[in-house]
């Protein structure tokens, strides 16, 4: 696993505000790595007009 992702993981855990027991640190770091690998597809550039699927619809009330 790349070192920068190890550092990223430690920072992500701090930012999330959760506690991971020492014996589960490695499996969680591995899961984080797998997740980031899968999510690389989200870095592909999108057109300006590609708006998110979850846009608000005020015609139906709040």
């Amino acid at each position, binding site marked *: 696993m790349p070192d920068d992702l190890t550092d990223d993981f430690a920072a992500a855990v701090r930012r999330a505000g959760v506690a991971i027991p020492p014996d589960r640190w490695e499996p969680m770091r591995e899961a984080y790595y797998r997740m980031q690998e899968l999510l690389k597809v989200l870095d592909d550039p999108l057109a300006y007009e590609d708006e998110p699927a*979850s846009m608000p619809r005020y015609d139906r009330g709040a």
Partner: protein
Amino acid sequence: MSSDLSSLALPTLAEAGRRIAAGELSPVALTEAALARAEALQPKLDAFIEITAERARAAAKRAEKEITGGRRRGPLHGIPYGLKDIYDAAGLRTTAHSRVLIDNVATTDAVTTARLEAAGMILIGKLATHEFATGGPAWDLPFPPARNPWNTDHFTGGSSSGSGAAVAVGILPLAMGSDTGGSIRLPAAYCGTVGLKPTYGRVSRRGVAPLCYSLDTTGPLTWTVEDTALAMQALAGHDPLDPGSADVPVQDYRAHLRDGVKGARVGYCGAFNRDGEVGPEQTAALDKVAHELAKLGAEVIEVALPPNAQFQACARTISHSESFAIHADVLRTRPELYARVTRERLMLGGFLTATQYVQAQRLRRILTRKVDALFETVDVLLTAVIPGPAPVLEETDDGPWRRQQPLASVFNVTGHPAMAQPCGVAANGLPLSAQFVGRHFDEATVLRVGHAYELAAGWVEKRPRIASLGA
């Protein structure tokens, strides 16, 4: 009314409704049979979190009185059902199979519960689930995981695990599930039942514990496609107090159920199945489904879905992010209340960025348009929902990151209605399953194609051996 009940599985919704209407079957006797089966099979299957016998008996007496008094409400009146234990039923606990909600008593019915109660159905109990409809089978929870009635050493699929087991073994002709990434269709597939994830917004989610607001759906598991049509007729409809609910007219799900598939265009997603690492037995079974539909007069053409990795990136980013937002407080302050597998999978959502979430929602719209475009040339899609038969329960993946890329969550991302139904039996005796997918809010076509296949293929006749009490 007489009670001509066998020791085998309860009759289907359709059959029970016909016999009750004809005065041949008593709701009281039917309810007693369901309760007896639930109690007898609970030690083997752990399908229930709570069996609500007293409440069921009182409801059955009321139903019988109404029906004999000429006030039959409709085809579901007097028939037992069950609720995944994330659905509220007034006066009963909704635990979500978790210590977090162990003392949570609902004060009102979920909208779906209320609709089934208004139809005169009789609640038999609350059913096992994966904790908060996520995580996986876990032994460090207040209740054990449900077991697969085809082989109790095997996984039911989840998260509507008790619903799949209870319907497959004929305790209940209808059980409610929820589906955020396949949680209706996976237990349906592994347990050999029918399970429909309706279009997002078709069935109310109000009063059902949320997992992911923009992916959650609620829907039925039944033994037959006709029963799913009957259930959907009661369940579907606009709920103005559910922010995701759609104000779209409800179809008549039975009007064209028996019209067959002659001329229907079926898009077979063979390449997607290979992309999703579907095994040879499941692939061969799906090929046979395509062949059977062609024999029945459908036009079967190969179509290509976008790569599964794109759907998975969307589904996992959105689901993990939203579920972490829901559970963040308890994860930070009382994490020990969750099973390890639930806690770790929920925590992953806290490691995602806002940019990843927005990008996933942008990609989701693109993928939805691409699948919509397929429906310009086909009426339904045929695709895999599981890679093969149910794995051994104790060998189920319990790591924080699921190794297997799910196939089912594709249509949670796009919101299309998707139904799993039996299409064969693997060499180890466990069910295989096909998935039919339709246009948004066109559940009727999915049901019509599924019904035609079900009648032709005959898998509906095959119940797990344990369904015969004493086996």
